[in-house]
């Protein structure tokens, strides 16, 4: 197990480097200016040149990348161009807000998605299967920002039951999961964010179970006279590794926040901060966010691999 962890950690290094290079290149390929937020629309060429020099944006891009990487390796992600706050504070603050959202969205998505998939997989071809599969397709197909707006119209505007926007009546710094006045702000964005993973998980679980169902060992179990409940338990255990992989990816997706969902609900999470960084070309924040999100993906996949290995001895032996 230790060897697996070590190997995956070593794999993470080129992944992080690759992500950084791609991200850096993409930002510079897009037209626009990283100093747009602070430059007036009629800033003169001399002014722009002076400010670019002061911020170091007049250096060749590979040189900028080298200096950035050197600082990052020392734990310094730089300062946001727009806010002049340390990128680490910006990104960690937003990630913790997304983590709060994920605290509800992840169990919601996993429980509902997995349960629906199991129900559909246990009754293939039946009306329950068709209902679940149809709902899952709908969950995946409906744009989540549209669902978010519809939920706001129903629950916030028409019923006046839940807040439409924000993270608590006094902002994220005063937010508590254990206070209803705050918690109610979480409900609509969490449901909206969970919608897509519910659909994906339900379909993945159903497909995995359907595949297992036709395997020889299930027939053998049945021939041996095992009860249906025990057979389903065996099937679920065997169907788990691919479902876990999908869960890992979806966990990464949820931790990355959703730009659209967080924008609709003005939830100050990683997606919200990332979208502002993209619009403003705030390169330090963009780089820092993407790198940290990539690392979360890598860590999540490592955990998933370890879980898979724990569940399935064939993976440990591989």
């Amino acid at each position, binding site marked *: 197990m230790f060897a697996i962890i070590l190997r995956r950690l070593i794999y993470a290094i080129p992944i992080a480097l690759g992500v950084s290079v791609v991200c850096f290149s993409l930002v510079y390929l*897009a*037209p*626009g*200016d990283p*100093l*747009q*937020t*602070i*430059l007036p*629309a*009629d*800033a*003169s*060429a*001399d*002014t722009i040149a002076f*400010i670019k020099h*002061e*911020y170091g944006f007049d250096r060749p891009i590979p040189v900028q990348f080298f200096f950035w990487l050197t600082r990052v390796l020392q734990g310094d992600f730089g*300062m946001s161009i*727009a*806010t*002049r*706050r340390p990128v680490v504070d*910006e990104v960690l*603050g*937003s990630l913790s807000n997304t983590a709060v959202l994920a605290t509800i969205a992840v169990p919601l998505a996993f429980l509902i998605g997995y349960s629906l998939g199991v129900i559909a997989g246990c009754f293939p071809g039946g009306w329950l299967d068709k209902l679940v599969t149809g709902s899952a397709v709908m969950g995946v197909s409906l744009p989540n920002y549209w669902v978010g*707006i519809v939920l*706001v119209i129903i629950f*916030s*505007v028409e*019923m*006046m*039951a*839940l*807040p*439409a*926007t*924000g*993270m608590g009546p*006094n*902002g*994220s*710094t*005063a937010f508590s999961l254990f*206070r*209803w*006045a705050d918690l*109610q702000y979480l409900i609509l964005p969490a449901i909206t964010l969970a919608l897509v993973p519910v659909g994906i998980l339900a379909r993945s679980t159903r497909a995995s179970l359907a595949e297992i169902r036709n395997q020889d060992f299930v027939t053998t179990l049945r021939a041996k006279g095992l009860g249906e409940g025990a057979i389903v338990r065996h099937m679920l255990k065997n169907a788990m590794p691919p479902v876990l992989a999908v869960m890992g990816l979806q966990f990464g997706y949820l931790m990355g926040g959703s730009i659209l969902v967080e*924008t*609709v*609900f*003005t939830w*100050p999470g990683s997606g*919200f*901060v990332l*979208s*502002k960084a993209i*619009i403003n*070309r705030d390169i330090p924040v963009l780089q820092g966010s993407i790198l940290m999100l990539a690392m979360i993906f890598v860590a999540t996949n490592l955990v998933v691999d370890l879980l898979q290995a724990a569940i399935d001895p064939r993976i440990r032996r591989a």
Partner: protein
Amino acid sequence: MLRRHLPGLPAATFGAALLLAAGAAQAGGTVTVAMTAGDLPVDAGQPDQGAEGFRFVGWNLYDALINWDLSRSDTASDIKPGLATEWHIDPANSKRWIFTLRPGVKFHDGCGFSADDVVWNLQRLNDKSSPQFNIQQFALSRSYMTLYDGVEKIDDMHVAVTTKLVDAMFPYDMAYVPMISRCRAEALKLDWAAYTNAPSGTGPYLFDRMVPHERMEFVPNKAYWDPKRIPKQDRLVILPMPEASTRTAALLNGQVNFIEAPSPDTIPRLKAAGMQIVTNTYPHNWVYNLNYVKGPFTDIRVRKAANYAINRQDVVDLLGGFAIVGYAQVPPALPYYGHPVHYEYDVAKAKALLKEAGCLPCKVEFAISNSGSGQMQVLPMNELVKSQLEEAGFEVTFRVMDWNSLLEISRSGVDKYPELAGYNVSRLLQDPVTAIVKPVGRAYWAPAGSNWGHWQDPKTDEFVSKIFNEFDADKRMKLLTELHEYENEQAMMIYVVHDVNPRALSPKLKGFVQAQSWYQDLTPIEVTP
């Protein structure tokens, strides 16, 4: 409704609800504003986030030597004394302005305001060798500090500011320069990130708290030097809310009670819910800047044809009536509007002009953005204008891009993008220089300024020179009017509409006066229970 189904709510929640109800019943109450900005303005004097930065943070925390008069809705907003009670040009030197400072003014931190603070502030924005120089503030202030040359203290209550050229309208530039507290900045060892968490000015509001990216809260400055502008509410909260539908929902839901720019299609719903919709003409137009160096718009007949091809009323209707037709650079309410030509919708005339110019069909490519600060309903408006131009004989192609990319085109100028016939943008016309001088002045050719299409002719140059050298306000106004009429006669832009800046307010808010300005005064607003 949901609460009825959750009987087990903690007692603390009930208590909090009672407290909230008690808070709402206090005289003055809380004004909670949903801005269109994507983030809170970062404020070390010169705020970012464009005009909203000044509107909701800059002019609440600070004063400039010269302030904007935002007290009336029936006349165009102009400048008035702020931290300076009087200013005049030095009779011996037409590049030296002398300001008399207001006595007895104190910053929020208790330090007194004097000439030293003015010198310190202007050095902070301009003098790269001064310890308080701030590169970000330098960048944000460039539009207004172009002609600034230096500052000197005459005595504690007088300063002299010199300009690089003779500039009779320099006081307008000084109306964009908030004065921050030197005491506070130095106490924080000039750590500007720390300063944004504890700003101090002389303005009508005191900074109370901020949650980055989420909310900023202010309380009244009961010791404000202008007693008429001491805030009538107990607390002002500003929230960034870039999504229009979210702002509308938050207002209908009661989370906020003041929203900026509701989308026109939601206004009937807001009205049905009893919300107040306030609008007013203000200096903000929606036009196409043109290429005067290369392509069809070098010919005045083509420029006029494009203006005759626009059915402006259709565009106003598209916006639900929340705009006024635009025939010239500035709206009719401005004192230098004059009597411009009204390019009334006339397809036949437009076609005839194109035929005469030998440009039929007339191929043009415009850069447009898919969204952006103040761009109104940019995509449907552009589609409508495209169909109108094509009906008259143009063949229009759009190069669609995000706002940041369009700004890059805007700054670079026609030399870098000669293939473009123009680009669509909404323009801030807060003062006469920005409104009608910078877009045509030779000194402002992009990338040095905002004359994107490199307009130049001797008559314009003569107007600009006279305006900058005319210190008599009445005579200068006459010159500005003539320049405005001349620009319109030359059809320098494709004029479409002027924005009326709709806002929606809860029926509980009383006393708001929507000034004809990019800035607004929130101090008179009261919240009734």
